[in-house]
């Protein structure tokens, strides 16, 4: 019981630390970086973090169960490419959007099939589908682009509520985040996710169908990546096979930065959202300072490693200190 409380406390403190750092970054950047604090930049910041935040929601579930999905960015790219070629083929946008989300779900189901039915390691499977889906995206669309999507849709995606600073697309994101958050933290499904990550065998003995659970998590992850592909395409009004290239790094980095354990079983959705905002504001501020996109990857890569390294260092330092104080107290009478 006290252990549980202790763990909860530690998690809360990690979440709190991420929120605190995010606030500090926002304040410092608003003061020090020109144009960061403008409402126009605020809109761009939210638009930029939208696809990462969306994909991070199901990714949180998957990493909490102890698995991973590295294929999300390629799913986004393939959906975008298919969207472009369907539009070229003359389908209406109202038909294309649901088709693309279904396509994403099917791609996710393939991952889920390999991981849960064939029982293959998710790392290897999703590295394979990372290559496969991105390759298929290029097969579908080549290195060209499709651009002439209907204005009504593209301007809604880039537009803001009542011409204020809040983008329209923030509304579906908040709804999605609420649904995912409630499911993870307040339903039996969510408890099953944590149980599967903490100890798969124990979870199965407790009656949780971990295989079926994971399969559907991959389906949802694919569908959400498909939706992100649609929004990405509409936002830039450009369907390209290389859309979202490398985005899996940002998603995994944000999730781990938000305090989710890569070993599974631990993490909170509010923490992940804070991680997404922190990452996006750092990148936005650096980009305003004319740091190139590729150099920005140093920051993302290092943050990814640090967010996993730091909890390990803290906990091993803590045990070392405790052991030392316990060992030295009785043996050194001179103190």
């Amino acid at each position: 019981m006290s252990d549980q409380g202790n763990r909860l406390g530690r998690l809360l403190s990690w979440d709190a630390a991420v929120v605190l750092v995010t606030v500090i970054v926002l304040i410092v950047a608003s003061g020090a970086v020109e144009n960061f604090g403008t409402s126009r930049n605020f809109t761009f910041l939210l638009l930029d973090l939208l696809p990462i935040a969306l994909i991070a929601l199901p990714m949180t579930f998957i990493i909490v169960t102890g698995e991973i999905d590295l294929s999300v960015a390629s799913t986004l790219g393939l959906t975008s490419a298919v969207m472009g070629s369907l539009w070229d083929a003359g389908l209406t946008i109202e038909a294309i959007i649901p088709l693309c989300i279904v396509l994403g779900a099917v791609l996710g189901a393939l991952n889920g099939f390999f991981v849960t039915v064939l029982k293959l390691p998710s790392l290897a499977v999703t590295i394979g589908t990372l290559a496969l889906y991105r390759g298929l995206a290029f097969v579908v669309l080549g290195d060209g682009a499709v651009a002439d999507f209907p204005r009504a849709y593209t301007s809604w995606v880039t537009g803001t509520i009542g011409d204020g600073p809040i983008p329209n697309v923030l509304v579906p994101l908040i709804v999605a985040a609420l649904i995912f958050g409630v499911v993870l933290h307040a339903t039996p499904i969510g408890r099953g996710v944590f149980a599967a990550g903490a100890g798969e065998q124990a979870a199965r003995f407790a009656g949780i169908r971990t295989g079926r659970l994971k399969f559907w998590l991959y389906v949802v992850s694919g569908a959400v990546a498909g939706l992100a592909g649609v929004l990405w395409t509409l936002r830039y009004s450009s369907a390209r096979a290389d859309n979202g290239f490398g985005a899996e790094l940002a998603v995994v980095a944000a999730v781990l930065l938000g305090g989710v354990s890569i070993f599974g079983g631990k993490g909170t959705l509010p923490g992940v959202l804070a991680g997404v905002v922190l990452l996006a504001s750092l990148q936005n501020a650096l980009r305003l300072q004319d740091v190139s996109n590729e150099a920005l990857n140093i920051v993302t890569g290092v943050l990814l490693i640090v967010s996993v390294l730091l909890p390990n260092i803290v906990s091993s330092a803590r045990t070392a200190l405790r052991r030392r104080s316990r060992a030295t107290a009785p043996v050194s009478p001179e103190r």
Partner: protein
Amino acid sequence: MTVTEEARVTGKPTVHPRRSWTANVLKAREAGIVLALIVLVAFTATQNSRFLSGQSIRDILLGTAILAVLAVGQAIVMITRNIDLSVGSVLGLAAFAAGTLMQDNPGLPVIVTILVGLAVGAVCGLVNGALVRFGQVPALVVTLGTLYAYRGVSFFWAGGRQINADKLPVSFLDFGTASLLGVPWLVLIALLVLVVAGIVLRSYRGGRELYAMGSSPQAAQLAGIRVGRNTSVAFLVSGALAGLAGVLFAARFGTVDAAAGTGYELNVVAAAVVGGVAVFGGSGSVWGAGLGALLLTVIGSALAVLDINQFWQQAIVGALILLAIGADRLVAVRVAKALKKRDSHV
């Protein structure tokens, strides 16, 4: 146990059933790749005789050489139940370092550049290894992070600059194309790497320890194997080989920018996995990884000759990874079943 003792008494040669099983499986995998290669080459050659021209074979060998050097490093890391996703970025960094060095000091002997490339790669590998070993961070996370971090360093350093072949000394470019007794230098270097790594992994204590670690890290630790040190060494070797591959890359293509080798890690992982190196660690050989590299390169070149959309290449790489791990899983299940049956009879 009784079987072995009996055999020792009777003087008959013993065949450990389990070893013969795994040996057969490995042979089947390598034979399968060779068969696939023969079918692919024969089919492509009948469609277009240009495929077997001297120039085409040369291109395939040079491409395989670079990929094989990377795949050997990957195999060593994967055998210890880790993964190194940063190899493509290390290759790019080392290639740019080598190119810059040769451009600024045209008189430098090629061997110095090779050593510099090895050193750049070794430092990158050392960082990976230290983070995995001391940080207790999974290799996947570390090398996914350093994949982007090392690539970022390349971009930071190179900016938009590009190293062109006409700025490089002739001696260096010759190294990329020249050959000894008809065999290109690049191929000789790759063969040397393969043979040394193959022998060390097969017959030396250090090599066997890597397999033990991959089969069961806890058991290896209990058996007195220095798991942490060996992990660092595996990443060091993988990094150094990626650095070497970077120098070979620069010498072969002559044109290097900050994006050199982007996405190579997928081909490298595919080569190793297709060649029978298990993602769970503990099994596979560098020979298999080398054959995997050859197969991938031949597929790429066959696509070009057969006039098939080049974009299929990456999709095929992905499909091959899935096929290979699926096949491994099937074999593992069969072997487990067979072993259970055998044990129940005893």
